């Protein structure tokens, strides 16, 4: 390959890795801050600013970066720059699609899925270590929420039991601080963990292109740019995901928020301590569900949770499909030009998703609005018949009218 093309390719891979880092921060703000925003312990803007700052600090806090990607899941020998680029594209697109749908899903699983798909396209099924994929990715996705639900529900039950005869105002005032502290820990751990993934990818690309020696540490500009990309993503806040986590699953109050975030922080840190990595997103979502399970009289919207679990199960295959398609596109066009075509396509698809999101924008202004599922006319009719409540029908007419106005 021409040296100029090669260095341009490197620039493309680094830019894509930073873009992934950005979507990672963007997508995962809710894991730490959704509960604090929903319980109004922090104003939405304050919450994302705090979380972004802590992600930034977290990225500098610990630098045990390894130049590996999807270790033990794909055959390291088949991972080329083209595979990394296609894998990143798969991760980014899946992150954006789930964001558009307001579904929290694991950014690391999206990346792994993208890489697995690209490897499948590049080297066939023997390039993937299937046992590793099952035991390190798919099964933990099922286990993480169960563990988190258990811990958070026990915590919530005990907390509410001991504070049931304390004035609600006093509870809110004091638990607010516990909530901010525990949510900050989750942000910090996220910054340390996830920024390192992108640093590792960029380091890998630099080594592969011969820009730095093989035993090189992470250059400072890589650390800085990864930290900034993630902090910027976090600050812009994936408000759709925040809304689902904070308002969609459970109606939260400060005691539940505190129990949920402490459970998240504890399970995330313990799981990495014991070498059994669980996804931050899966743990955080499970904890929020658990805080609803453990709260007497609280209802959990299991239908929303069910959609999430489904999204987690299809994250790897879907991101894999995109990764495989991206790799195929690059291979068909061929060479350095192929990579630029992949990059261009990635920008085009991302732009389209962003355009779609503008139809029903969710931002700091409406993130805490009441959760109203979009009910179709038939189910409203059924409900009104079952409850013998014709008022429900009137609501439906109103909704219809509003819808018509909205379409104009």
């Amino acid at each position, binding site marked *: 390959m021409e040296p100029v093309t090669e260095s341009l390719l490197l620039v493309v891979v680094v830019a894509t890795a930073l873009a992934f880092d950005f979507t990672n921060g963007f997508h995962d703000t809710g894991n730490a801050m959704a509960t604090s925003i929903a319980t109004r312990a922090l104003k939405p803007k304050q919450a994302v600013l705090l979380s972004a700052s802590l992600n930034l600090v*977290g990225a500098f*806090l*610990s*630098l*045990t970066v390894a130049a590996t990607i999807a270790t033990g899941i794909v055959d390291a020998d088949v991972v080329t720059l083209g595979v990394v680029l296609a894998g990143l594209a798969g991760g980014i697109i899946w992150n954006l699609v789930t964001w558009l749908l307001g579904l929290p899903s694991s950014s690391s699983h999206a990346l792994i899925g993208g890489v697995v798909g690209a490897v499948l396209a590049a080297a066939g099924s023997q390039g993937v270590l299937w*046992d590793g994929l*099952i*035991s390190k990715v798919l*099964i933990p996705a099922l*286990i993480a929420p169960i*563990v988190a639900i*258990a*811990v*958070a529900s*026990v*915590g*919530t039950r*005990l*907390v*509410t039991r*001991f*504070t049931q*005869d*304390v*004035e609600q105002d*006093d*509870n809110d005032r*004091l*638990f607010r601080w*516990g909530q901010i*502290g*525990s949510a*900050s*820990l989750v942000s*910090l*751990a996220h910054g*340390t*963990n996830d920024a390192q993934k992108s640093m590792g990818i960029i380091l890998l690309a630099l080594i592969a292109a011969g820009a730095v020696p093989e035993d090189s540490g992470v250059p400072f500009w890589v650390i800085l740019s990864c930290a900034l990309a993630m902090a910027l993503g976090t600050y812009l806040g994936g408000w759709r995901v925040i809304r689902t986590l904070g308002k969609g699953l459970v109606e939260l109050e400060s*005691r539940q928020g*505190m*129990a949920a975030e*402490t*459970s*998240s*922080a*504890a*399970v995330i*840190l*313990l*799981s*990495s*301590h*014991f*070498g*059994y990595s*669980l996804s931050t997103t899966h743990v955080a979502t499970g904890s929020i569900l658990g805080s609803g399970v453990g709260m007497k009289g609280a209802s959990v919207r299991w239908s929303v949770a069910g959609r999430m679990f489904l999204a987690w199960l299809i994250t790897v295959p879907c991101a894999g499909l995109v990764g495989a398609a991206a790799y195929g596109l690059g291979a068909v066009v061929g060479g350095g030009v192929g990579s630029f075509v992949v990059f261009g396509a990635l920008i085009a698809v991302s732009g389209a998703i962003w355009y779609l999101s503008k139809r029903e924008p969710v931002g700091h202004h409406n993130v805490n609005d009441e959760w109203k599922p979009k009910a179709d006319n038939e189910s409203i009719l059924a409900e009104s018949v079952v409850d013998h409540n014709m008022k429900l029908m009137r609501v439906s007419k109103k909704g219809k009218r509003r819808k018509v106005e909205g379409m104009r």
Partner: protein
Amino acid sequence: MSQYIEWDALGNIVLWGLIVGAGLPTLFALGVRAVEGPGARDEEGHIPTFRKILGGLCFGIAALAVVGAIAYIAAGGH
């Protein structure tokens, strides 16, 4: 199935998760109960010293745990 799940690690995560992840909020709740629970304030609205100390102890341990966790993250133990 068993070759796909690291049961030892999982058991440890659940056990310590319950102790730390559910225990700390409970401790915090006991602190809240100490300073604002029923009967915590006398007629003039003052909180007795022993309740303040008890509450401070609970909140202090919770704050220490946060500091410890930050040190743990910084030490690269995760």
